[in-house]
Structures are given as C-alpha cells and as structure tokens.
C-alpha cells in the first residue's frame, strides 16, 4: 500500500530533478528553449483551468493577465532598471489584483456566468490592450529588453529562462494538484456543476471564485514576466493577441480541463506538434497535418485525454471502494419537541421587481418540530424556503436561527449555521459521483472534520437513504427516486439543525412515498427540526406537528394538521382541491 503510494511520488521527484538539471546535461541549447515553451504553455493552460476548468467560469481573457504581467516586468526592468528577478513578484501580484478587482464586481452578479463571463473577460482584454498601446506604458513602439541583464542562474541565458519556467511550471502543477484535492477544489468543482446549490450547501462561492481567479491570473502574470525576457521585444499586438486565450482553451480541452494534469498533457502535445512541422518546405502542409491530428484526437477522446485514461482505469479502482454500511450513526438520539424556537421568521417580505412574493410572513418553528408548509401554487412556499436558506436576499423583515439573526447572511454562511435544504427537482452536482456529492455537502455544511471522517459519515448517510452500492454512480445514472434520496443524503450529511425539504415526495410512486415518509420520520428522530413544502396532503397530515398555510405571500392559517385542513377558508383557497379525508 505504502510502496504503491510512494512509487509515483518517487517517480515525480526523479522527473523533477532530471528536468531541473537538463540544461547542464550538455544537450543542444535548443532543447532548453523548446522545453521552456512547453513549460510556458503548461503553466498558462493549467492556470487557466484553475478557474475556467475547475469552476467552469470560461474565460477568454487569459491574455489580459498574461499581458499585464509581461508588461509589468518589461516596464519595471526596461524603463525603471529594476532587476529582472525583482520584477517577477510584481508581475504576479498586479494581475492577481486586477483579477480580484474584476472578480469582486463580476462574481457578485449572478447573471454574469457562462458566455457573459467569457465576453466580459474578452472585453477587458481589448480595453487593457488598447490602454497599454496608447499610453506611455508602451505607446505603440514596443519595449526592447536587450539592455536588461539576465541573472546567470544557469550557464546560459536560455538555461536560466528554462529554469525559471520550470520552477513556475512545477509550482503551477503542484498548486493545481493541491487545489484539486483540497476543500477549495471540491468547492470549485461544485461551483462548476451548480453554483446556487454549491452556495446553499455551504461553499463560500464568492471567495472561492475570487481565490481561483487571483491564483489563475497571478500565475499567468508571472509566466508573462519571464516571457518578457524570452521574447525580448514586446509589442501590444504580439502580447494581447487571441492566440493565448485560444491556445489555453484548446490545450485544456484536449487534455481535460477538469483534471489538474489534463491541461499539461494538452499543452505538451500541441506545443510539440507545432514544432514538428516547422520545416520551411512544408510549412502549410504541416499546419494542416496539425489540424487533422487535433481533430482525430478530440473525436477519439471527446472529454480530453486525462478523463479518458481515468475512465479506462476505472474498473480496477472501483473494486477497492469500501462500503460503509457498518458505520455507526453520527447523529444524536431522538428528542421531543422543545420549547425553544429554532426558527423565527418575522415580517418577512420578498419582492421581485413589482411582484410581492412574500408580504410579511411570521412563523415560529420550535426545536425538533416538523412544520408542513402548504398553499396553492404561487403562494410563496418555495420562495420562503429560498429566503430562509439565503438563496434570495430579504426585501424586509428578519429571520433568526436558534436566536441568531441570519436574514442578512450569504447562503453559504446560513448553511454553516445549520440550515440544509433540498430541491424540488433534484440538483445533484452532475460531474461528481453520488458519494462525492454527499462528501461535498458534508465538507461544506457540517462541522470541520477530517476527510476520512467525512467520508465515513457520507457513506453512512448513503446507507441511511438506501443508496448503498451507488457510491460511484454519476447522478445521471440514478433514477428520480434515487436522486431525490441523494438530495436527502446531501442535506443530512451537513448535520443540519434545520432541514428545509422542498417537495421531496413529488413524482414518487406510492411505495416510494411510504419509504420517504419513514425516512423523514427517522430524520426527525435524530433531532433535526424540519420545515417541508408538500402538495401531497396524506404526507402533510401524517408527518406534520403543525401546518402553515401560505396564500398570496401571506401566512393564512397555522395549527394542527387536521384542524387546519378542515378550516373552510383553507379549503376555499384550494378551490375544491382540498384534502379529501
């Protein structure tokens, strides 16, 4: 076991050592600069993938950060005589700051996802390029670096640049590897799949995106800083051209942009291909051949090389997955309904433009209680869930959880404080296995624990919801019933004080409904307070301690289920769709 784990590390260490010493091996200097360019593209495409591959924020603006770093070094070194190596930190920091500023504005706006983010980053590139071109930063004449001394870290200048690029490349890969295995990475992958759900499950999405963006931009910047010396003569047209964003995208796609190592593979393949056909006689033919090879590669490996290899290796790995049915329950024993209010909703209003979705709702939920939330379509049930969980900001009123005001907090913070929710239409993270889904929810929702503990607990909740054996299945491979239960498992794994269930029963057949009702009871038996939205009156009556009826955004009735349901006013708002006892 240990040897198996150490072997790749040893191999990696040896490879790193061998590569680091390559310039001293007596190979022709060309190989230094060839590998320099491989490292250059590996670093750039990997750094792009940190935000765009991992978190799915597709950026076409990588040239902006690369270019800012490049010009930072060029201006400081060539115009202000700052020693080259001292310019590199600035070349990393400035683009990172730029990313933070852009991100601080853009990441707050929910609408700027997908193509609009790509467009925005592209526009930023154009703006920065034009500013650099028309101000004394460049001015149009280009910056010539020949007078800038290059420190002799290696015997030759190219060797020195090789070494710098190599260090950056290894660091970038190490960062990508570390991130992909960290809490940050898990959060980013969750954001990639469904950002709203990630936030509701406790992922501090804003901070994570900002971190990834800054890392991505900082790496691109320092790569640019070194590249300023490699190119020697810097022009705006040659720096902010579309080649950089285009190539990093293509390299990442070819290798697999969600994998930490994918972009590196793609970058190596494409850079090597570009060199393979540099002979003057077949320049055009060479370009066309590169095109055909790329087409063949991506048709054969549509998700990229690394995921394809991983898929091929999968059957062997699956066998080693541990089943967790024997894990002891992690929840506290059953409690009766307490006197304390777990949830206090006071005068909550929510407006969407001119539409008043909630018009001053008051509702107290006691500790350990199950409150059913019913009402006709459009009465504001799901909106209330969405405001309590922080998905929508409040327009007015207050919400307190266990005596603490949570109304103004971001959703992930509310999740940390013990509110978990499910979605009416299950929204699992599509590219994570069922187990990973539950692990992510446990990691971000529950208390801080060791990864092994989290995993055991996740396995426990999967067993609890009857999903044992489905650990390695992607959500697309689960049926609706299983996906609904996966929603529950995710919510439970966060060890919530308050569980908000949004129509968990809809779409299930009668047997599955019975099963689900038993499950909710079991959850309550473990001590959670539950608010659930439901249309199925049988379940409402069977499960609820009290029922709250919402109508037109207001609390219409509240009380014991059977009494409320017999209330003629309640019956009338259902227009004959009343509970048929």
């Amino acid at each position, binding site marked *: 076991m240990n040897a198996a784990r150490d072997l790749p590390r040893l191999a990696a260490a040896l490879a790193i050592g061998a590569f680091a010493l390559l310039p001293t091996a007596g190979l022709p200097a060309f190989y230094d600069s060839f590998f320099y360019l491989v490292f250059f593209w590996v670093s750039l495409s990997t750094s792009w993938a940190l935000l765009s591959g991992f978190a799915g924020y597709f950026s076409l603006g990588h040239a902006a950060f690369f270019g800012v770093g490049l010009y930072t070094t060029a201006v400081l070194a060539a115009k202000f005589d700052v020693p080259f190596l001292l310019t590199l930190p600035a070349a990393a920091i400035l683009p990172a700051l730029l990313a933070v500023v852009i991100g601080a504005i853009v990441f707050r706006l929910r609408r700027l996802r997908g193509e609009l983010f790509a467009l925005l980053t592209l526009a930023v590139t154009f703006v920065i390029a034009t500013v650099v*071109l028309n101000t004394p930063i460049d001015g149009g004449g280009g910056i010539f670096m020949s007078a800038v001394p290059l420190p002799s870290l290696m015997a030759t200048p190219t060797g020195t640049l090789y070494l710098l690029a190599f260090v950056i490349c290894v660091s970038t890969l190490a960062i990508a590897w570390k991130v992909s295995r960290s809490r940050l990475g898990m959060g980013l992958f969750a954001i990639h799949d469904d950002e709203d759900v990630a936030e509701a499950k406790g992922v501090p999405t804003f901070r994570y995106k900002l971190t990834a963006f800054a890392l991505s931009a900082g790496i691109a910047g320092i790569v640019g800083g070194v590249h300023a010396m490699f190119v020697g003569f810097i022009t705006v047209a040659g720096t902010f051209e579309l080649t950089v964003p285009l190539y990093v995208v293509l390299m990442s796609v070819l290798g697999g942009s969600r994998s930490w190592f994918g972009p590196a593979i793609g970058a190596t393949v494409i850079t090597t291909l570009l060199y393979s056909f540099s002979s003057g006689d077949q320049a055009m033919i060479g370009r066309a051949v590169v095109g055909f090879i790329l087409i063949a590669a991506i048709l054969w490996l549509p998700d990229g090389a690394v995921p394809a290899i991983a898929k091929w290796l999968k059957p062997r790995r699956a066998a080693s997955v541990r089943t967790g049915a024997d894990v002891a329950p992690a929840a506290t024993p059953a409690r009766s309904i307490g006197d304390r209010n777990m949830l206090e909703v006071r005068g909550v209003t929510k407006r969407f433009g001119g539409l008043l979705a909630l018009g001053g709702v008051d509702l107290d939920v006691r500790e350990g209680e199950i409150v059913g939330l019913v009402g006709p379509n459009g009465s504001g049930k799901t909106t209330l869930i969405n405001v309590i969980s922080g998905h929508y900001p409040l327009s007015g009123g207050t919400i307190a959880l266990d005596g603490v005001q949570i109304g103004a907090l971001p959703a992930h913070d509310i999740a940390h404080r013990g509110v978990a929710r499910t979605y009416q239409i299950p929204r699992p993270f599509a590219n994570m296995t069922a187990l990973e889904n539950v692990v992510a929810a446990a990691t971000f929702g529950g208390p801080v624990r060791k990864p092994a503990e989290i995993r055991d607990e996740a396995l426990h909740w999967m067993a609890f919801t009857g999903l044992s054996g489905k650990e390695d299945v992607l959500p697309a491979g689960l049926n609706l019933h299983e996906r609904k239960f996966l929603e529950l498992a995710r919510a439970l794994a966060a060890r919530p004080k308050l569980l908000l269930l949004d129509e968990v029963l809809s779409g299930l057949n009668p047997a599955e409904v019975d099963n689900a009702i038993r499950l909710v009871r079991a959850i309550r038996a473990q001590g959670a307070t539950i608010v659930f939205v439901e249309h199925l009156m049988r379940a409402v009556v069977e499960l609820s301690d009290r029922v709250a009826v919402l109508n037109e955004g207001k609390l219409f009735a509240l009380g014991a289920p059977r009494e409320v349901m017999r209330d003629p006013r309640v019956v009338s708002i259902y227009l004959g769709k009343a509970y048929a006892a």
Partner: protein
Amino acid sequence: MIERLGAWRRRGVLAGLAAGAASLAAPSILRAAPSGKPVRVGGTLSLTGFLAQTAAVHKIAADIMVEEINGRNGFLGRPVEYVLLDDQSKPEMARSLYEKLITVDKVDLIQGPYATAPILAAMGVAQRYGKVMIQSSMGIPKLQTYDRAFPATPFGPEPDKTYPNVILDAMASIPTPPKTMVVLTSKFPSAQFMAKGMQKEAEGRGVKVLLYLEYESGNHDFGAIAARVKEANPDFLWVGSLGLESNLLLEALRKLDYVPKNHFHLYPAPGPLALSPDGNRALCSTFIEADEPFMSRPGMKRIAAEYKERATKINLPYTTLDAQACGMVSEWQILEAGVNGADSLDDAKIAAWLKAHTVETLLGKQRFNGPYNHGDAGQMIKQVQNKEWKVVWPKEFAAPGVKLLAS
C-alpha cells in the same frame, strides 16, 4: 578544386577569391561548380501566420540567390545549402528555431528573418552565439544593437530624420508645394516611428500638420478616419500604412467623394495599391524598382526575370521584383561578400570585414561603419503612374522621361 574537398578550414587556399558582387556580372563561362560538404546557412521566415503575406517574396529571392551563389563559387568553393524553417510569425518560435539551427542543426552561418519582432528575437540568439546576422526589413535601426548585425536595406541610421526630408524635398519640388498635411499612421512600431519623425520634420520646415492620427494596426474600418481626413482637407496626406490599409483608406475616402491631393504611403502591399483605381499617383517608399536605372545594376535583369517566372509559377498576385525581394537578394549578396572578403566562415572575421568594406548590392553600394552598423540612407519615392510603380525621387534615380506628378 579537388584538394579543397572537405578542407574548408584551410583558409589560405581560398585567399584571393574575388570579393563582393562583382562576380554577379561574371559570364557563366567562368563559373566553377562548387563542391564538397555544403555550407549550411540557416534562417527562418514567417511562412505561416499573420506576417506571412510577404514570406513567399522573401523565399523566392533567397532561393534564387542560393542558386546564383552556387552557380558561381558557392561559399569558399563549397555549395551553399539554405536551411529554412517557419517561425509561424511568432517571435518566441523565431528565437527557439534559431537556437535549433545553431545548436542542433549546427548551421555554419545564419540569415535573418523579416519583420521587427522576429528579427529582434533572432538577433538575441545570434548575439549569444556570436553569429553574423544580416536582415533586410527592420525599419527602426536604433534597435539593432548587436555589433554583428547588419542591415541589407539602406535605411541609414536615422530614417525618421532623413527620409521625411526626402519626402519634403520631393513635395517642395511640385508646382504648388503643400502648406498643410495630415499624418495618419498604423500603430505598428516601424510605421509609427517614421510617422513621428514625419510630423516633427514637417513642422520644422513650416508645413502645418493639421491632424496627427494613429489607428490600430490591422484596422478594417476607415469610414470615420476618412471623414476626418476629408474635413481636414490637407494639401498632403502621409499614411504610415501596411498591407492593404492604404487601399481601404483610399476607398473609404472615395466613398465620401473625396480624392486626396498628394498622398504618400509607407509600406503598403505594392500590387494592390498600384492596381487600385484610387491608387493613381499614390506615392510610396522604396529602395529600388524593376526599371532603369536599376536594371543596369549587375545581375538585376537576370534576377528580375527569374523572380517573375517563379512568382508566376506559385501564383503570387504581384510578380514584379520589388524592394522587399531585393532586400533579401541584398542580404545574400552581403553575406557572400563577407564570406569571400574574410575568406572564412568565421563570424568574427566576416563581421570585421563587413565593417571595413563597402558592398555592391542590388540596392546600391552599402557600408556598415555608421551608427548601429548602418551606412548611407537610400530610401526613395515611387509613384503609381498608369498602374505601374515608377521611382520619381531623387530625380537621378527616375527612369528617363519619368517625373514626379503632382495631383
């Protein structure tokens, strides 16, 4: 010749070979076929990518010259082999491919690429390995800071001061010399460099610059710029253009029903501008045209004919030997002269010889002992007359009967 086989280091044997391009005119009967291990001369051209428009021009010229040289004595009696790589218009590719040529392919000599960025990238490599590098198309001489780099095109050390005065002299010679002008330039380093000089020199000589405008290199949309030029209505329009920018600008002006009075274009694609209905009487920078008196220069007729044939064969739209192609020819003539003059393939010796001598090239006599290894400026003015380029200034280089036509 046999004793020279594989013995190129025996420089003594080779001493006394005629230097310079005088041999260009030598009758073929005196040619001796070079033999032995080839002298490999490496270089890149931007055969693909965004600078590729003129790659074919350079390649044809280089191929012709390699054959010409091999038809004579090769280099020191050995055949010359041109190892050409494609830098894909990227300076980082140029840099690494020159490293490949020098350290992997182990070429004996190198030739420069074209366009400022690849040239400077290659020059850095040449400097590290002490190689002589001759280039033909860098419009900003002060960037050529390496003492073994030589220009094959006579820009002179300060073309931004000298050439504007050539233009202003020409303009002063027409019946109504311009009092006002508009300077319009692409923000391409070498064009902008010249435009700034033009603005300064014009103001120094009392020509009022009504507008100085810079546009992004590769701009497609000249409507608004044309409207501004029309409104300024200068006596003289100077455009620091590249490629087809001049065509697009002149068309945009025509669409506004405006024909500029006198107009000059810096580095336009020669064919399209000459053939454009709006190109008539357009002025343009040049160093040589396939016309008298240049046709009488040694080798010119032969090279021009050969060039036309090859350019037609590969379907080039403009098949007349132009200044760019001649720059490449000159590059090889200078290298040949340097090798023969130094009687060696040693870069230090070639560089020393070149600095101390004058070389006869298609672009005239060139020396390399001025600032940045540049010599005398030889930039001229040509004009479209009846859809053909004619050198019109300085007068002594105009073909008989051709003169500068004012608009």
